[in-house]
């Protein structure tokens, strides 16, 4: 290393670079190690929780009177929707935080929550019609929840497209701006579809009115299980993204230092 802190191209040691990447202190190193140990434990716990929730949904919960066993799709459909909404809300928060503080971690959180949110949203949009078909005989209805979820899905997929298609320097800022606009759109989506539905009544999915307490119990268990699952998925995606960015940064630095593109000792 030269006196001014820059590194000469010939002495850029890749192995050293990767080994010291991101690990600047003992405390940080210990934190990362304990986090990495926690992950498999949480994974196993979540898997157990999911299996228990599945059992409750298929066996433990009482059978619904009018719809029969098909109604059990409800225990996967609704928690997925709630999880997706929560993830999109976190994306909104992270985007605002990024706009104010320009914190790169916030940007990664926003990206991760949008991606995983879209995955859960896709589940909602597919299980919905699968549920609607045997019960109402139609695959789709401009039902409040289903339509709003579709629009939400469209908004966040367009967000992911922006992330993919814009050049990396400005992507976080543009994406954050889009996320804010998208999130502000959500109340309008709900109001407009609500009024549209009162003018053109459609079959209501998911049943209005009160819910049997045992069913509510199973619903909440599944929601808890899926929330834990979503958290772990987000965490993995976060780690992947962070690593990807470090690699990209290292590549960028390497090509800056050695424009010929080959690494010399």
């Amino acid at each position, binding site marked *: 290393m030269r006196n001014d802190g820059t590194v000469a191209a010939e002495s850029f040691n890749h192995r050293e670079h990767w080994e010291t990447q991101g690990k600047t202190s003992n405390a940080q190193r210990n934190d990362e190690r304990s986090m990495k140990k926690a992950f498999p434990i949480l994974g196993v716990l979540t898997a157990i929780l999911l299996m228990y929730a599945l059992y409750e949904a298929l066996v433990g919960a009482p059978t619904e009177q009018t719809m*029969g066993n098909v109604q*059990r*799709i409800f225990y996967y459909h609704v928690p997925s929707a709630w999880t997706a909404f929560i993830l999109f809300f976190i994306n909104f928060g992270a985007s605002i935080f990024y706009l104010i503080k320009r914190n790169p971690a916030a940007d990664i959180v926003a990206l991760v929550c949008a991606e995983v949110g879209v995955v859960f949203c896709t589940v909602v949009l597919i299980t919905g019609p*699968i549920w609607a078909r045997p019960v109402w005989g139609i695959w789709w209805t401009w039902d409040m929840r289903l339509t709003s979820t579709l629009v939400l899905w469209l908004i966040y997929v367009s967000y992911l497209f922006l992330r993919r298609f814009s050049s990396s320097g400005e992507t976080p800022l543009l994406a954050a701006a889009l996320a804010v606009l998208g999130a502000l759109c959500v109340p309008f989506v709900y109001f407009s579809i609500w009024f549209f539905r009162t003018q053109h009544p459609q079959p209501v999915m998911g049943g209005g009115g009160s819910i049997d307490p045992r069913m509510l119990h199973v619903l909440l268990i599944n929601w808890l299980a899926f929330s834990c*699952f979503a958290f772990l998925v987000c965490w*993995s995606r976060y780690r*992947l993204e962070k690593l990807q960015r470090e690699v990209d940064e290292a590549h960028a630095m390497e090509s800056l230092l050695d424009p010929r593109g080959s690494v010399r*000792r």
Partner: protein
Amino acid sequence: MISGNPYLVAAYAVTWIIHVTYLTTIVRRYSRLKREMKEAGLRS
């Protein structure tokens, strides 16, 4: 309980197919990245 109902099975199956597919893409990208890092580390 679930035997008579193809829609129920389909819904639950699709849910997990979607989740597993997404997790697979994460794992694959992660291992490709690790491989890239190893190659870059070994080159110098």
